[in-house]
């Protein structure tokens, strides 16, 4: 019996060592990446899949697109925290994607570990969190989920600009996206945690003397027409509370040929609006 228990414990320790080694390896590599970004890039594009479309070479200074698909502001905040923690940080400007969908119910689910979206985010953004001390997930809640271990093995999310050649999206696909974003699905107060972390991002940037621009890339006219008007009103109410530069193309009439779906630009759209955004930044 003692031999059996000893072997079980030894094996569990062996597994633990394997996981800690993998975690340590990825964490060191990620820290190196943060160091490189902090030293080499003046502009950072941050946000979710909307800003992930924007090409880095449109801008006057060295720019890095640090956005990830379905990124909650909480993870943007922890990314920035790690970035500003670096000994030398040359970051001057953060271009942060802010749009009407960012305050929709789907973003509430991204931090809920009882929802598939939350579990997926735990897996994807695990390395950007301090697993022992963060404001969103408790350590014990995280380690009791399979996605935590999947996240450890998978390593940090890679950053890449998404270039889509799709155009003229169909109405039914746009409606599906709206349903996905805005279906309340039993959630009472869906916007709180996004606003909370948006405030923390802005404060953190101010503390570190880094400028912030809110960027709202355009959306398809069908998307705009089919979202409840009160969602737009709420969005404007939220962003007005921040003393931050805003570059807003939500109201612009964008041709269908520049959109890959309801709320994402395709490669031509990203190039076109990227240039416009770069121009506005120069002017400001």
């Amino acid at each position: 019996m003692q031999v059996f228990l000893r072997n079980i414990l030894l094996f569990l320790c062996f597994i633990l060592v394997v996981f800690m080694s993998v975690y340590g390896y990825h964490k060191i590599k990620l820290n190196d990446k943060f160091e490189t970004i902090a030293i080499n890039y003046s502009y950072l594009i941050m946000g979710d899949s909307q800003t992930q479309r924007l090409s880095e070479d449109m801008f006057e200074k060295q720019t890095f697109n640090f956005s990830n698909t379905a990124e909650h502001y909480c993870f943007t905040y922890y990314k920035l925290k790690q970035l500003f923690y670096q000994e030398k940080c040359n970051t001057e400007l953060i271009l942060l994607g802010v749009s009407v969908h960012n305050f929709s119910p789907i973003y509430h689910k991204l931090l809920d570990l009882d929802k598939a979206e939350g579990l997926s985010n735990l897996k994807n953004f695990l390395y950007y969190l301090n697993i022992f001390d963060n404001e969103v997930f408790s350590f014990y809640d995280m380690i009791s989920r399979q996605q935590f271990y999947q996240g450890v093995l998978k390593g940090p999310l890679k950053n890449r600009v998404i270039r889509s050649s799709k155009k003229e999206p169909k109405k039914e696909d746009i409606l599906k996206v709206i349903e996905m974003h805005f279906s309340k699905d039993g959630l009472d107060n869906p916007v709180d945690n996004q606003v909370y972390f948006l405030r923390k991002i802005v404060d953190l940037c101010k503390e570190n003397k880094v400028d912030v621009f809110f960027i709202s890339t355009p959306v398809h006219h069908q998307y705009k027409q089919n979202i409840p008007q009160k969602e737009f009103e709420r969005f404007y109410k939220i962003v007005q509370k921040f003393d931050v530069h805003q570059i807003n193309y939500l109201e612009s009439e964008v041709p269908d040929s520049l959109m890959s779906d309801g709320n994402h630009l395709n490669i031509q759209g990203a190039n076109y609006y990227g240039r416009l955004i770069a121009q506005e930044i120069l002017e400001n």
Partner: protein
Amino acid sequence: MFFNSLDFAFFLPIVFLLYWFVFNKNLKLQNLLLVCASYLFYGWWDWRFLSLILLSTIVDYFIGLGLSKQENTSKRRKLLWISILVNLGCLGFFKYYNFFLDNFVEAFSFFGSSINANSLNIILPVGISFYTFQTLSYTIDIYKKKLVPTKDFIAFTAFVSFFPQLVAGPIERATNLLPQFYKRRIFNYTKAVDGMRQILWGLFKKVVIADNCAEFANLIFNNSDELAGSTLVLGALFFTFQIYCDFSGYSDIAIGTARLFNFNLMQNFAFPYFSRDIAEFWRRWHISLSTWFRDYLYIPLGGSRGSNLLKMRNIFIIFLVSGFWHGANWTYIFWGGLHALYFLPLMLLNKNRDNIGVVAENHLFPSIKDTFSMALTFILTVFAWIFFRAESLRHAFSYIGEIFSSSLFSLPVHFGGWKALITLIGVIIFMSAEWFQREKKHALDLSLIRGGRFVRWGIYLIIILVIISFGGQQQEFIYFQF
């Protein structure tokens, strides 16, 4: 409580430590611990249905004692019938009430008279089909004087509710399991280690193969009207591996868990997809159920004795009842009937015991004849699974109709991309592992492997990493609904 849940990951070590370190001095206390653990395990799902298990336990315990004291044949028969009626009555009410009611209503309306009858909103108690059959085997064996009834109520309660096999089998015989509760149990290192391996392999089957296959099988079966025949064939294949890995995975975890407590449960699956004919398939698939029906239904009906007509009747009865055991739906009955049709020619030609041993024993690859036989048996099995999985007979026939249309020769539609492809590759790797280990009790039996602890630990580590990395979305065990 699911075997693949975190709750069970805490529950099992606690029960294990209490069993071997706190209650190890006293057999009765050990049995009592198993009863408490089993009731907690079951009550975790819904404590109200513990009363059904308790009812079945009390009734069969006292009927068992009554049968041992009674020599009068007609009174003995009455006692047996009470046990059968109580057990099958509960099963019938919870599982089949609505089915019979709906079919009566439909039958009456078919003949022009309508009757008003409302279906009841009945929850099916998990595992009722399994523990009912287990307790029935006890009273039937006492009635046949094959077993002496126990006077130890705790041991009997532990036998009925033993948590590793309570909700999805293997359906144990009292003659095998009950005596194990009377004997002092000493920890067996080799058995416990192999039990752990079997648990790990069962988890791999369930979490990696079954849960991933389920995703695509559900997608395809739920949208079968819109998909091409070639995609539907893939759907049937995904379900074939889903149901095997789901159920045999559960059995592996159950048998492995029992071994940690030094109990031996019967083998429930013996690599059934390597069978060379349907008779062999049924000797390798859900062995505890098929042998139960053989011993308590088929043989009492006359078995393979008598005229061909009688043999055919018996075969049809056993397969139809077996199908109906799975659920209150015509699809299961049809599935059973189809297997009876597959089986009949073998029995009538006296070829049903041609393939008894392990296929290609002591050889790496099978002969051409065996390969052909295995492929044919596999195709017949896959075809029958379509009825088992379909929502209704109409759905099954339209599914099969689409398979046998010209769209069978089109390329399968894109329905999961690389993930579906990886799942298929995973199934091939899994089946290869099963093939190489087909002479063992389970595929992760590494007792003969050379290279020492680090090789074995390396294999365990790889399996654990695969479970973590490629585990599908958690699905309930299919056989919980039976």
